[in-house]
């Protein structure tokens, strides 16, 4: 004589432990996921993993193919606007500069040191100003890559916050008022002035970053600017 499946099931449900997750695990997971998102913003569809049953493999393949197809449709239907692609690149460069602890190739708060450093490395001369008195201290500069070309990256600090300012020649000479946006929790402002285009990115709040942009525009304004 032995128990039926039902009896055994009842016995298990009555007596076996259903382990409960520790408090705070959900919060830790949410945190890890956000960190992951900030570090690796470009998701890839799931690749099929070897060593599974054929059934599972086929399922994965199907999902992967469907995802690729969907992605292709989306990409074909909505080409990324240039500003969006740039914002993506600017944010990625900013994150990378913070992660690799490779903020500056020339670390100096003196714009007389930083500006000449770019000479010979770029085919343009980026305007370099120090805004320490206004709370945005110049920390240095480095070369970076954006929009298919080498650009100047100027690093500013405001308290614990880092601002990356990317500067390179604008395609046309006409100026462009500052445009603010946000991406992955970072604030961005871009504008064009004096034949140069500029993108500032930081974890500063939007108002402060716009203030930073306004100060820079004022100080690097061409022609009849009161020195």
């Amino acid at each position, binding site marked *: 004589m*032995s*128990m039926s*499946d039902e*009896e*055994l*099931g*009842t*016995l*298990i*449900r*009555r*007596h*076996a*432990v*259903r*382990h*409960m*997750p*520790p408090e705070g*695990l*959900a919060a*830790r*997971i*949410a945190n*890890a*996921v*956000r960190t*992951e*998102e900030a570090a*690796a*913003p470009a*998701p*890839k*569809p*799931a690749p099929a993993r070897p060593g*599974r*049953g054929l*059934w*599972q493999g086929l*399922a*994965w393949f199907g*999902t*992967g193919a*469907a*995802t690729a197809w*969907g992605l292709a449709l989306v990409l074909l239907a909505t080409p990324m606007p240039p500003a969006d692609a740039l914002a993506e690149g600017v944010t990625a460069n900013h994150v990378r500069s913070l992660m690799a602890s490779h903020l500056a190739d020339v670390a100096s708060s003196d714009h007389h040191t930083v500006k000449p450093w770019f000479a010979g490395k770029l085919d343009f001369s980026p305007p370099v100003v120090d805004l320490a008195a206004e709370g945005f201290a110049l920390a240095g500069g480095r070369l970076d890559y954006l929009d298919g070309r080498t650009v100047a990256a100027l690093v500013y600090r405001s308290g614990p916050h880092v601002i990356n300012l990317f500067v390179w020649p604008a395609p046309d000479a006409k100026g462009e008022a500052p445009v603010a946006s*946000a*991406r*992955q*929790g970072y604030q961005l402002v871009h504008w064009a002035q004096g034949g140069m285009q500029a993108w500032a990115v930081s974890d500063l709040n939007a108002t402060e970053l716009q203030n930073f942009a306004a100060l820079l525009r004022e100080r690097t304004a061409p022609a009849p600017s009161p020195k």
Partner: protein
Amino acid sequence: MSLSTDRTRQFEAAALPHLDAAWNLARWLLRDDQLADDAVQEAYLRAFRFFEGLRGESARPWLLGIVRNACYDWMRQNRQLADQLEFDELRDSEAVSAPFSSSADGDPARQWEQRVQGERVNAAIDALPPVYREVIVLRELEELRYEDIARIAGIPLGTVMSRLSRARSMLRESLRDERPGDAGGRTRHVNV
């Protein structure tokens, strides 16, 4: 705000509701709180990376499948270490059984009987090899459909049925003298 923040929010909404099930599976497979913690976190990160793979499928089996794989990865890498953990089991199952006893009726003899029964059932499931343990946990504790279990374990439906059947006969074997005191009992499993 930005797309990426939407992605994290969507992921959390889809995946976090299944944390209890994920934990229960990982804890039964790895038999250790810290290991289960690591495995579940790792699995959620993997799931997040492949979140795009989830389209119109039920998140629960998908996620539990990833949790299961994370646990098996660990077991494969640490086979020896896992064996050393076994002696902790008795203590663990006693600890978690305790709340159940206190909620049973006041008869000390009956309480004792319940407690012994709980320990025996937990120990019997624990003693099953992982591939049998997981089908019992998924079927009897998580009450998942056979199709979902097949998906989670990456095996055909027929194999789910045969493993369940084998797992049940192994359990019957080790619980041979244990007859359920009241087959019609309405009490559900312990939900500490």
